[in-house]
């Protein structure tokens, strides 16, 4: 599904990703762990198409297509979703408006009819209920004045509505209390199936008790330095990143 080969990325002439490799097959859940500043968010943003990051070497293919050739919105329509580490506040744009526009853009891309207001409302309410999100969050401006937990839950809510093929979750667990963490994990687990993959970026092993990954990768200084199964997360928890 996703193949990242020898990816080098610069920002402001500073190399951040230094030969990143990862291959994700359909249905798999990969976790990327690593110390602060190792380049995890950079990878996530590059996958989503952020222009400030300059790819100097390497390639990324997604479902057979050259991902780096696509605009951010095309990537989203092709099935990529990024849950931002720091979701952006957009005053004046209602959450529900963004979501309906996003969903309908994706449907249009697939030559499907736009969803009517009523149908969208029904869908949104269903998903919100499951995530324990208050309905008035729909009417509020995107992420504006949301608590940290609300922002993260809102990202998962968007993911559920948009039903991506590959979801990249960038530290969606940080700053969550245990109840919120479980809700987020349930939100992810309920979407796991043989055709959908996840890259779960986290700093802590805690989340992986709830979202059990198929593979764990350790990222240090812009590359993967070790990969293994879920037990690698436990090892990291005990020994820390110092050994890498």
């Amino acid at each position: 599904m996703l193949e990242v080969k020898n990816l080098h990325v610069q920002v402001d002439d500073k190399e951040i990703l230094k030969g990143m490799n990862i291959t994700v097959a359909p249905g798999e859940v990969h976790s990327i762990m690593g110390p602060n500043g190792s380049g995890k968010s950079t990878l996530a943003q590059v996958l989503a198409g952020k222009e400030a990051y300059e790819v100097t070497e390497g390639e990324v293919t997604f479902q057979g297509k050259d991902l780096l050739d696509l605009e951010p919105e095309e990537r989203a329509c092709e099935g990529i979703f990024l849950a931002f580490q720091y979701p952006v506040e957009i005053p004046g744009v209602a959450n529900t408006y963004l979501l309906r526009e996003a969903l309908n853009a994706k449907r249009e891309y697939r030559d499907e009819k736009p969803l009517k207001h009523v149908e969208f409302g029904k869908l949104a309410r269903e998903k919100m209920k499951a995530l324990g999100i208050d309905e008035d969050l729909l009417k509020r401006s995107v992420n504006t004045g949301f608590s940290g937990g609300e922002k993260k839950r809102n990202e998962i809510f968007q993911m559920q509505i948009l039903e991506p093929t590959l979801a990249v979750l960038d530290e969606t667990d940080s700053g969550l209390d245990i109840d919120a963490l479980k809700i987020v994990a349930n939100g992810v687990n309920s979407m796991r199936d043989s055709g959908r993959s996840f890259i779960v970026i986290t700093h802590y092993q805690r989340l992986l008790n709830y979202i059990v990954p198929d593979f764990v990768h350790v990222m240090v200084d812009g590359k993967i330095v070790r990969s293994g199964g879920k037990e690698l997360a436990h090892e990291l928890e005990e020994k820390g990143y110092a050994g890498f």
Partner: protein
Amino acid sequence: MAIVFDGTRESYVERLSEFLDSEQKNAPEWITTLRREAISGFAELGFPTLSDEEWRFTNLEALRRGSFSIAENGISGVSKKSVDSYGFPGLDCPRLVFVNGRFAPSLSDTVDAGKGILVKSLSEAISEQGDLVKDHLARYADYEKDAFISLNTSYFEDGVFVYVPDGTVFEQPVHVLHVSTDEGRPLFINPRNLIIVGQSSVAKVIEHYVSASQSVYFSNVVTEVVCGENANLEHYRLEFESQKAFNFSTLRVNQQKNSNIASHSVLCGGAIVRNNVHPVLAGEGCNSDIYGLFISEGRQHMDNFMRVEHASPHCDSRQFYNGVLDGRSKGVFHGRILVHEGAEKTDAKQTNRNLLLSDTAQIDTKPQLEIYNDDVKCTHGATIGQMDEEALFYLRSRGISVRQAKIIMLQAFTGETLEHMSIDSVREALESVVMKWFEQRLENGKGR
């Protein structure tokens, strides 16, 4: 013979007798006296220059060099159909039409709202309600201090007169449409409006300025508003004039005790535009909400001049002005708040936000607080920036096209001021005008 002004101070002063003899020969004595008094104001003042503190950012050289004349051709250039095209879909309300500053009865509705409400042309009101008009006309807009007000007071021909007696709710808005036409030479047009809202009464007035052609002219509007005790007025000034016109306008509001106004200005047309909003919160417990949106492109120049005058205790005022500037256009926001000595417990707030769509657009924003007592709360804030790249990327990462993402961002920005309009059909029409304007910018490859 046309009455022509060559741009000099003398020409505007000297042509008045000609104007009085031809256009105004049947006017009542007191109006003629008023006009004469007013022109002596202009004789003293002349047009302001850049060294005038209140005109620092707006150069009137082109106006001073321009030759303009009084319109002669009546209303023939404007059809019912074209007037209808300026309506607001879904808005059912009476409309009065003025062409080049003159009343066009054949294009206007006769308003019979009952309850003693009067909606008619000012010239009719001068002959039919002389005493009432005399009590208010030129009592607030000071022709001794402001050159444009003195010119208007000297040369106005017509405009709307709205009178809502005490204790009366006038539900329907009034749509006042001012159309300018091309008569082959640049015109000098002076619409004059007078709105009187009685004690505990309610009114809504939409002043709407459009051009039938993209010609050069000098339009100079003065609107005086009297808001009686506990009265409530919502006022709109929608300026969609020719991109080649010089547009000056003043809204002068006198607010009595516990009265409430909402003023909405939307400026889109004009080459050099100056919009003065000047409420005086004269009685205790007044509230003024002043909203503005200006959008400019090319070499347009838009100067928004606020003068919010707190003259009594316990009054609140709010200014929310947003500007969107593209091309080489220039904007000015000059927000003056004047708090008089006795106006304790004043609460005045001012916000001006500007979105620059090009590297060459420019905005000068200047708050100016003049406070003569200690017991006040005054805040102001201004921002200038380009479209938020992070927000655009966030929207795009959800599948929304870059074009649509920009449109959403612009909608949000302009909505901050438009959303306060209580007349939905007007707000929606303006939203779509603003969107069309922006789509045009995007098509030109700008508007990033």
